[in-house]
């Protein structure tokens, strides 16, 4: 029983972290129908941005409430810069090309970013320890143990998702985003600046990825150049599972994946070595019986 509770907590923490990346996937796909494989790398460079700030810029001893915001700002700044450059230089010129061109470009950007960091960031050929800026202790309830960092992730991640949801529903730019997602040609005719809306989508995704990167770093205590790819695949899976284009769906999908990975490792056939397999089996089953995901909308055949 204690083990089950602990596994659920593990799943929640993992889901919260994946969810922040999944939001970026779901937003970009919703707007320009691009699986932005490089989004995981936006998350990764955010983590390295924060690492750089703390290792080379900040003084050694800083209380967490001072250091944490600085790291968040640094991570977000780096993530957003990379995302904007990526959109402007790599994706925008391909807006009218066939649909595989941006996808291949995304894979290229992903490889490029991983390798640039690995080769040029000092020490990045191996995992780097991330500074323990946040209280390095845990919350204990009976035999249940949760790191405070995990509590923070589980609390902050849905809050950010809710804020994003509110922003997309209420703000002017958010309305424009929804219009573009619905029908880009009509939206353009209505006077919506497509480039601005798409760029804004990338920026919003990058902000969340940057924040996610800091939460990830302080929770696991280490970062490496491949963290974006693996978690990016999970995040994309989460976005698809939840129904791509849906903010609530992405969070739901992420928690679902966290849970499945955690519980399958404990209880399912094959043990931890097959935990990924169960995540993907779930995905395939869901897509076969509900192709639009949990909360997605089915696209109608148009003739």
């Amino acid at each position, binding site marked *: 029983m204690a083990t089950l509770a602990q596994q659920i907590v593990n799943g929640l923490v993992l889901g919260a972290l994946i969810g922040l990346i999944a939001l970026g996937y779901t937003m970009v796909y919703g707007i320009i129908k691009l699986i932005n494989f490089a989004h995981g790398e936006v998350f990764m460079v955010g983590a390295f941005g924060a690492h750089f700030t703390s290792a080379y810029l900040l003084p050694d001893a800083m209380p967490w409430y001072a250091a944490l915001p600085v790291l968040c700002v640094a991570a977000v700044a780096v993530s957003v810069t990379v995302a904007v450059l990526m959109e402007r230089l790599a994706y925008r010129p391909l807006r009218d090309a066939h649909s595989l061109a941006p996808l291949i470009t995304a894979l290229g950007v992903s490889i490029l970013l991983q390798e640039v960091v690995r080769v040029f960031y000092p020490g990045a050929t191996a*995992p780097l320890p991330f500074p323990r800026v946040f209280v390095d202790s845990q919350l204990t309830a009976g035999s249940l143990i949760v790191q405070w960092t995990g509590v923070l992730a589980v609390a902050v991640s849905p809050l950010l998702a809710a804020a994003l949801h509110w922003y997309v529903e209420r703000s002017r730019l958010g309305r424009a985003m929804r219009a573009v997602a619905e029908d880009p040609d009509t939206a353009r005719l209505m006077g919506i600046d497509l480039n601005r809306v798409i760029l804004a989508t990338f920026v919003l995704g990058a902000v969340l990825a940057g924040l996610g990167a800091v939460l990830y770093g302080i929770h696991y205590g280490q970062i490496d150049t491949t963290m974006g790819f693996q978690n990016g695949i999970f995040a994309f899976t989460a976005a698809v599972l939840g129904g791509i284009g849906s903010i609530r769906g992405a969070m739901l999908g992420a928690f679902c994946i966290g849970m499945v990975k955690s519980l399958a490792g404990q209880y399912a056939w094959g043990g*931890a070595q097959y935990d990924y397999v169960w995540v993907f089996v779930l995905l395939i089953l869901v897509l076969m019986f509900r192709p639009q995901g949990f909360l997605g909308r089915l696209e109608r055949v148009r003739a």
Partner: protein
Amino acid sequence: MRTKSGAALSGLLAIGVVLGTGACGASKTESPGAAGSCDTSKGTLVVGVIAPMSGKLSAIGLGIRNSVQLAVEQANEKCAVKGYQLKMDAQDDEANPDKGAAAAQRFADDANVVGIVGSYNSGVARAIQPKIASTKLVQISPGNTDPALTRGAEYATAPKRQHENYFRVVGTDDLQGPYNARFLVQDEGKKRIAIITDGKAVAENMATEFTKEIEKLGATIVGREKVNENDSDFSSVLTKIKSLKPDAIFTGCDYSISGPLAKQAKDLGLNVPVSGNDGIFDPQFIALGGREGDIAASVGAPIDKLPTGSAFVEAYKKKNFPEGYGGFGSFAFDAANVIISSIGKVTASAAWTGAPEQRTALVKEVQAYSTDQGANGVVGFDEYGDSKNKLFTVYKVTSGAWKDVKSGQFEAK
């Protein structure tokens, strides 16, 4: 439009002219030292390196490459091979057997190549061995630990030499695993041990050999779990292991997984030592989360207690390589020196042509090689091509650094 491109072009022109005149002014003479003081009239001999130099294992691969580079440069300074200049040619195998086999073939075709240091991955070595077997090109691995590579699939019961041109300077899994098991049970008194691996050959084989020895010693393996090599969240696996109440965790993984694993074990209140082998004997393990009391059993004497070992470390640092020597640099250094010393003997009598007879002669010299002056102490090979060095040292994390607690020979029982 026209004027714009015109301006751009004249700009280019100007840059070209400036570059040209600048370069003309500078004159370069040959750098003294290296080749200058020795007789290199007979040409160039090449020591090949095959290692993963990009991707996740690049830290290890680059350490191997730099260490061979160091050995080659030292040899050139000392005129170790009379009449020849030595060079290193490093090929990235990306930890991919297909790429490794192509690189090995490239070396085998090249008469100037005298031997290969590599590969790091046992999987790559399995593809290289048949490629170069008929060419008799000598291969010394600094990192393959799969016993089957030298002694065949029946290595425990009916060992048989696989390839006469294949050697290695590291201890195999069936030494490393059992040595660790004995230390945990006999010295530390552990009774219930859990195993974590990452699906890589070295981890799986080590864990299997470890398990055999643990069972012989009468202790219990409470569970064995495999994590994904790209994973960073081990909370689920550790929660499962915690429920099995172990008193130690054996990890077959290297520090990039074992470090975070140790950190997350602590986070979950699983306060038992993590024990591993060469792969975690690295300061990064501690930086990434290794705790006081975690254990590493590594081949050879403590490097800083051997004069030859500390000499290697000193020399490596002096070269200012951008990367560290990693877990396998010292082995690669030893392997390169075996090749260099043996080629010196072969070329003492006849000029090197790269003919199969000469390559066979070189293999014989390597087989006969023996010293106790390697960076890891004893360097030499038994009848299977395995390292004769069966000395192990156990280290523990003590006040934030690895500290040796015990050294001893491994005797099979």
